[in-house]
């Protein structure tokens, strides 16, 4: 939690290694617009001089003058676990598979939308926080996973086992839509009637119990449910 707080409090630093002037400038603008702090390096050999641990995330183009993107990745991966996002123009399976094997976390194929890139960057930066936390806060909702307690503001809410499991399952992946079938399979009692209709009934009851924060449990069209902060709903 402390680490997560630090990450969100300061502007996360992003190292961008991209040789193309226009694309590089565009990416820098997008990242700055998302309240991130990008450092743009245009040359592969200059990138190797950087210390990867000074950054929260690396965006690495594969075709670079001076050094091949995968070589930079290999060098950085020797003693750094910083998330790496690969920019690939060739759309070759071989490149992507090698990059993933060398420790890249994800890749984006050109051409891409600025929003698309940003979504991937944010997904990567959010992930470590998720794995570490045991107490999840969404808006006014506070969910203690191990203690099996739920607070709306200061007030504890009494939930049934199924309702809590449902909320916890959504809370473990905040912002992500969880398929209805998956929830029915993993949350409902398999011995009882575990249909998706039953799930909807449980969701309905949960929303009521959460009161004003019930809106956080959003229905996702065609998919299932998602726990989202009220601001985004």
């Amino acid at each position: 939690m402390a680490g997560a707080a630090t990450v969100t409090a300061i502007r996360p630093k992003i190292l961008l290694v991209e040789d193309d002037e226009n694309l590089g400038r565009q990416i820098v603008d997008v990242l700055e617009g998302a309240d991130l702090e990008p450092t743009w390096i245009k040359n592969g050999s200059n990138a190797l001089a950087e210390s990867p641990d000074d950054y929260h995330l690396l965006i690495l183009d594969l075709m670079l003058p001076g050094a091949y993107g995968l070589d930079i990745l290999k060098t950085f991966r020797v003693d750094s676990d910083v998330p790496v996002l690969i920019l690939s123009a060739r759309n070759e399976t071989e490149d992507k598979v090698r990059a993933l094997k060398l420790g890249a976390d994800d890749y984006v194929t050109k051409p891409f939308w600025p929003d698309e890139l940003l979504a991937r960057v944010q997904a990567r930066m959010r992930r470590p926080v998720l794995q570490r936390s045991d107490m999840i806060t969404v808006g006014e909702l506070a969910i203690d996973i191990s203690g099996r307690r739920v607070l709306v503001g200061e007030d504890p809410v009494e939930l049934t086992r199924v309702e809590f499991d449902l909320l916890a399952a959504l809370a473990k992946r905040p912002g992500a839509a969880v398929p209805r079938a998956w929830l029915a399979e993993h949350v409902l009692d398999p011995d009882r009637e575990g249909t998706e209709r039953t799930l909807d009934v449980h969701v309905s009851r949960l929303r009521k119990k959460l009161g004003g924060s019930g809106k956080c449990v959003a229905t996702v069209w065609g998919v299932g449910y998602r726990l989202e902060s009220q601001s985004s709903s």
Partner: protein
Amino acid sequence: MTLRVRLTLTILVTAIPLVGGLMWLRRDVERRTVEETMRASALAFVDHNGWRLADEDEAVRWGGDVRRWYRRPNGPGPEGRGPGGRRGEGRGRSGRVPPKKRAGAPPGLPRSPESGPGAEVRRNPKGRGGGRRPPPPVELAGEAVRHWIFAYDETFTSANPLAPVVPEALRKALSEEGLAGGTCRVKAGPDEAARDGYEILLRVPGQEPPCAFVLFRKSGGQLPSASSELLWASIILCGVLLLAVLVAAGPIVGRIRRLAADVRSAAADRYVSRVPVGGNDEIADLASAFNDAGAELRLNLETIEQREQALRRFVRNTTHDVMIPLTVLQGDINDLRKRVEKGEPPDRERIVQALEEAHYMGSLLHNLSAVAKLEGGEHQLQMHPVDLNALVQRASERHRPMAHMRGIELEYGVPDPVLLTRGDLTLIEQAVSNVIQNAVRYNNEGGHVAVILEAPRNKPGTFSVQVIDDGPGIAPEEMANIADRRFRGESARTRNPEGSGLGLNIARDVAERHGMTLTFGDSEYGGLQVELAGPLLAGAEGA
């Protein structure tokens, strides 16, 4: 090297050592036979006449020159010829010997130092009046063969001046072996005698000194003529054999040449014509094999040509299809520039349209690369474990900005933990992306598209990616062939307004190549529901 030359060389290389070996064997057998005969004859002679050697006058006892009797068939010998019917026998026999052979010393072993052409039989180193008495008659077989016999004592010394000197090595060997009994040696030296005849030196068994050894010499014989006959026979045999082989090889060589010409002409017309197959032998098999290989090659050529044509057509159509959005894009941006210059507010519709065209071009180029890969065959696929969660996420997020701009809500949901399958990452992602793009593209403003990845409980070991929309959907009669629109020329553009054509077609191709299925149906929301289903990576099933 032609077949004929090879056959000839093979026969020669085989026959020459064979003939040589046979001749050597023939000579060896003859030598042995002669040796045995001479030995037996010599022993028989000594057996019958040995007592005379011991009894007679000293010179006679020490051996005699048989030739003397031959030289004087009608009269007594020049020296001390004694009486006796025995000599008459000798005379009678010697009369048949060719006269020219009678002159000079007998061939064979080197003569003793005292002997010489002039010495003839008169000479007797011991001065014992050798020749005064006739030597014993020689009972030998062979009409045209001359024989000599010389007696030696234990020290290989003969009383006969014409007796050849026995070489030291032979003496030594004979002395040693002589202890063991009657032994003979055949001398076939390098001199004239060797070609003309044989000598045998043997210990006389049971004979008392001074006659301890007897040299029995035979001049003439059958060997040289027999050998040359054999040689000629062998040469003729080789010739006949060679001729037979070449005659037999003739038709084979001819057929092989015809086959080579047929294969060349088949190759010239791209293996359309077949090589004629005649007979039922290896050459016919070879012709059949050429036909099979030609058929295979023709098939491959046709496949390659078809692919090339398809790809050329695709590139032509794609170029056309890229030029249109590019033109629209240029126009839209130009319009935007004009409006900005005039101080007018930009037209949102046209901006969205421009973005859409750009997005479409990106997808088109990715599809072009996917088609190239699919048309290239199985070996182009690079199979690796694929994280389906990340794949669905990437494919959905690629189209989200476009959907958002068009007022369409695009959502996706994935299970936890991740699902893995095996396949070509780029192709599967392109397939899913195409299905999503299709759902977004043909939906209306305010519509929805949902992408759900799951491991269906009723089908363990499989995954399912469902793309559901609430768009207009498609008519039931079109459902079956929705993915059949290929790049079939002008009428079936990749960019036709009725459907997505190419994108879904590629998706189905990718599915088939991976042993997956792509099925189309109506969604519960009124639109289209497309499902990509396939096997999960063995041993990596999500819980």
